[in-house]
């Protein structure tokens, strides 16, 4: 019997990378899981890989749109009858550049993708969780939610904003059986990292490998992290045993962030 038996979870950006690892870990612990992504074709491959039958359900949607965010949460409730665990996991950035050259569009894209998507899904999910007096929200922050790096200020600002939202919401619902926590992974070579890393590296004046080496070099373990490491923490936070942890920002970064 898994620690998430009978729970319903929703993971945005759940078809690959960290989101997919969390979905798999939740399924292994007995939860029913909605995974979200933009592309139904890509999702099919992920669903096949999970091989979880009726326990996993895909909802297509673009997390940069409020209506889609709300539809993903509502769709979870409609399909599985509840939403117990929300993981607003999707995120990223684009057109990285130093602040002096950062465009409004690039800053806005990172804020919508990371922060607004987290807010929209959190608000919608809390409205289901509060009357039921049970819930777990696990936001996807980053080591960059605690630290800063040049040329990725849009991403850094958005992840810091998620940490603030997480702490504030935790205080609002603390007595209602609902916890709100952030996980702060160090660099992981996910598909998103492989797609966006070269651009971020260029904005920092580095090669892609140089970027990865910089992240690893800042840590105590001197290597990158894995999606499964993050998933193990998500399971703990989502479980009944996680009831006493809220408003926290748990680092899975090999000893990188100073607090």
């Amino acid at each position, binding site marked *: 019997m898994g620690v998430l038996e009978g729970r319903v979870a929703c993971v945005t950006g759940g078809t690959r990378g960290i989101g997919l690892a969390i979905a798999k870990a939740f399924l292994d612990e007995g939860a029913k899981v909605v995974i979200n992504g933009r592309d139904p074709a890509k999702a099919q491959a992920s669903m096949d890989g999970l091989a979880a039958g009726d326990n996993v359900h895909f909802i297509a949607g673009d997390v940069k749109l409020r209506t889609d965010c709300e539809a993903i949460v509502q769709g979870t409730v409609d399909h599985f009858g509840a939403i117990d665990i929300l993981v607003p996991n999707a995120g990223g950035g684009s057109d990285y550049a130093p602040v002096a050259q950062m465009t409004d569009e690039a800053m806005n894209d990172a804020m919508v993708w990371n922060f607004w998507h987290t807010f929209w899904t959190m608000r919608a999910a809390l409205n289901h969780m509060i009357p039921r007096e049970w819930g777990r929200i696990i936001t996807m922050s980053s080591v960059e939610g605690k630290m800063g790096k040049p040329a990725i200020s849009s991403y850094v600002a958005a992840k810091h904003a998620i940490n603030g939202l997480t702490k504030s919401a935790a205080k609002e619902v603390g007595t209602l059986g609902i916890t709100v926590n952030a996980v702060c992974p160090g660099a992981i070579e996910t598909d998103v990292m492989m797609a966006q890393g070269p651009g971020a590296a260029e904005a920092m004046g580095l090669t892609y490998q140089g970027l990865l080496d910089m992240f690893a070099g800042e840590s*105590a373990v001197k290597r990158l992290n894995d999606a499964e490491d993050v998933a193990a923490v998500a399971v703990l936070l989502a479980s009944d045993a996680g009831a*006493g*942890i809220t*408003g926290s920002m748990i680092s899975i970064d090999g000893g990188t962030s100073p607090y």
Partner: protein
Amino acid sequence: MGSKLEGKVACITGGTRSIGRAIAEAFLAEGASVVVNGRDEAKGQRCLDEMGAGDRAAFYAGDASKQSSVEGLIDFTIDRYGQLDICCLNSGGVKMTAPVAQMTDEEWLLEIDWNLNHVFWGMRRSLQHMIPRQSGRVIVTSSVEGKLGKPGIPGYVTTKHAVNGLVKSAAHEVGTQGITVNAILPGIIETDIVRTTGPDSAIAMGLEGYDQMIALFTQESAIKRPNRVEEVAAVAVLLASDAARNITGCLFPVDGGTMPY
């Protein structure tokens, strides 16, 4: 019954009751062998009887504020089970705390030995065993007072801040050697030791009594209740497991949303 710690060997200072006991039981449930430590031989035996884990559990009598006891626990564990994979430096507390202006040298030195030196002695001894094996977990029971401060418990606050620094520094020393070093920072828990020393601590803190002290701590949290030992034990299992190989130098809060960072 899980298997996340199958084949692992753990030792826990202050392991016969409260947080340490909950960690011991959680580790046993995940397949580890565990040595628990405490001062009282009779309590130790009762603890072993209650846990009912047979050869997978042992007791080592000793005072965690004494270097010989802490090092003796590490050596005994390695002797008994052939290795040490997980060292939980959990014991700690205050005896007769007071505001700085009234703090006695005796109490101050006791708290330094019990809460800080004990962690250093245990960490040093276990790292000397873990480094050649390139594998290990050190888990320190710190406190919400390792990040915050309250009046009337200056020794406790100081030593818990200090162990957080020790944890971060050691984590960077052994980060590439398969060893993680982390602290768990629980909020207030109504453990035996809090129930025993709490009434005196409350007076040192300028409060009317024990209940008011518990209320003060819980009001600072988001969940408005004390934490539970099982909540700490679940985090200890995670940190001890293979899945936590990339969590190190971390100050892991289990405080119901009390700490600001």
